């Protein structure tokens, strides 16, 4: 059965986008930070958060292939449609990076090349920077020894090489997996099994790249905002956030489709399994978040602890609220079996955690890029959130219409239909 977008869904998504853009525009007019820094920072927050949903879905899809999981075959198309967002989701991210490279915004402090040279000749805009003391050169007051030590990794050309490598890999992987999945619908017998094994191998290969890239991209795109600070757990923590956001989006999407009468074979057991994933990954996120926090809090080393001092002293609500929502809410509300099998309840809790993880990305990006100009989430952030949400829903629903909602042929389809827990 093919999915078709209802008029109501279409008008709601466009309404969200228009409302979001309007709110963002009103907010941006009130943005008096230097270089419209706040606008750029919230663009980064939202493009990263929603790109992360696509990425989490792509990861989970590959994971299901690589582990040859049977139960999820019925909801495969939902994950395919979620990662189809990657096709467009990279554009706003790249816009932010281009603007940062051209110094139109100062989100990435390390992109200022004057930090890296010990001496300078001349003054003001005409100054040029040198590494060796020469005639007429004076000490560069901007010189930053810590940043100079990170130059081998944090420099604009290498940043772009990495960014292009990630984006190309993810977009190509998404395209390839989708193509394979559609091809499987047309095949039966031996060729179908062969294709599944090919998918299994390629997914395993992709997961290796994903493991490295997901970690490094979080250093590049997010952690380097606070360029003096670093945390070895940051990559995993960001990745857990992406994954849980993707799982929540998938659950809500499946429940929406079921409510509209699609996916008749998806039973309570499938919903229960997806609920378990949301529950489990929420705990993974909590575990990583807390491990990072506790080690830094415990050792109390000045260069590490500044990150949390800023957030605890200036944005306690964001800091603790995020932790509370993303940990306590799923723990208390999703623990019982009945809760994970109740669609309304799952959507309610899922929406709360979804917003919680968006706030988490705000907490990663905003204090570092805005400093004391960050006064909490306002019209700009919420407007952009709604606009991106509308764009995500639109892309996902459009992708759902392109292929039968339930896969036609898959070696594990029968097992998935009879899945019972």
């Amino acid at each position, binding site marked *: 059965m093919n999915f078709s977008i209802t008029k109501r869904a279409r008008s709601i998504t466009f309404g969200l986008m228009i409302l979001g853009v309007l709110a963002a525009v009103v907010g941006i007019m009130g943005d008096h930070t230097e270089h419209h820094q706040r606008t750029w920072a919230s663009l980064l927050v939202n493009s990263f958060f929603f790109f992360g949903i696509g990425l989490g879905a792509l990861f989970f899809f590959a994971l299901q292939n690589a582990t040859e999981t049977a139960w999820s075959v019925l909801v495969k198309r939902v994950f395919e449609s979620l990662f189809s967002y990657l096709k467009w989701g990279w554009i706003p991210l790249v816009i932010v990076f281009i603007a940062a490279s051209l110094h139109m915004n100062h989100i990435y402090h390390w992109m200022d090349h004057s930090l890296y040279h010990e001496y300078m000749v001349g003054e003001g805009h005409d100054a040029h920077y040198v590494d060796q003391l020469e005639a007429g050169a004076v000490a560069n007051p901007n010189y930053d020894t810590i940043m100079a030590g990170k130059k081998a990794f944090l420099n604009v050309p290498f940043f772009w090489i990495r960014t292009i490598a990630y984006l190309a890999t993810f977009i190509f992987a998404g395209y390839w997996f989708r193509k394979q999945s559609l091809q499987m619908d047309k095949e039966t017998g031996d060729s179908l099994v062969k294709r599944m094994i090919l998918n299994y191998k390629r997914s395993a290969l992709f997961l290796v790249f994903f493991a490295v890239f997901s970690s490094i991209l979080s250093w590049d795109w997010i952690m380097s905002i606070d360029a003096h600070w670093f945390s070895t757990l940051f990559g995993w923590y960001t990745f857990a956030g992406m994954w849980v956001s993707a799982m929540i989006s998938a659950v809500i999407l499946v429940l929406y489709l079921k409510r509209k009468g699609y996916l008749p074979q998806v039973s309570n057991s499938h919903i229960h399994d997806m609920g378990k994933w949301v529950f489990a990954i929420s705990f993974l996120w909590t575990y990583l978040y807390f491990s990072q*926090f*506790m080690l830094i*809090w*415990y*050792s*109390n080393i000045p260069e590490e602890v500044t990150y949390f001092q800023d957030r605890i002293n200036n944005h306690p609500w964001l800091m603790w609220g995020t932790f509370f929502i993303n940990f306590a809410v799923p723990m208390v509300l999703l623990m*019982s*079996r009945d809760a994970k099998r109740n669609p309304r309840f799952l959507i309610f809790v899922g929406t709360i955690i979804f917003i919680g993880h968006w706030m988490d990305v705000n907490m990663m990006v905003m204090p570092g890029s805005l400093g004391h100009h960050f006064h909490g989430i306002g019209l700009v952030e919420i407007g952009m959130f709604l606009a991106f949400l509308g764009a995500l829903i639109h892309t996902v629903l459009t992708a759902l219409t392109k292929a039968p909602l339930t896969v036609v042929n898959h070696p594990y389809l029968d097992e998935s239909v009879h899945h019972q827990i």
Partner: protein
Amino acid sequence: MANKVIYAVYEDPEQLKDGARKLVSNGIKVKDTWSPFPIHGIDPIIGVKRTRLAIAAFMYGITGTCLATLGMWYMNIFDWPMNIGGKPSMSYYQNVPAFIPVTFEFTILCAAHGMAITYMIRNKTLPGMPARNPDPRSTDDKFIIEVRTGDNHGHSAEAITSLLRETPVFEINERQY
């Protein structure tokens, strides 16, 4: 007529499920099933009540949380105040991150052990208890349905057996009890 217990032996869990469905749809109460591994979806067919093990586990977990908190508070704050991570505030609340790992581990420890022990007591499978398994083959490759005539007064043993013969049953054993 003495009460009889009938054991229907199957070679496949799906066949056992079909057999159990057939019995239940004819109004026959299935006492229990025996299998080498859990058969998914058998509980609603033979009408096994939802387990309350989860509630017990929650209770054990909460007990663990409370005990761990109380113990650490007594040892590290009250009886012998500790300087935790260079922050000598001597308060539990301000040092709570340092106590979380132990609280977490002790909660899991109590919940897991409590759950395992409760499960074994409830199933009468504590080490040293006599085995209640009717047929040792059900620990290897056979799947067995147990039906008692005492539970099914409306049906004779012959009627139940002939009903079972219609399913792909491997063998049927009857015993007095």
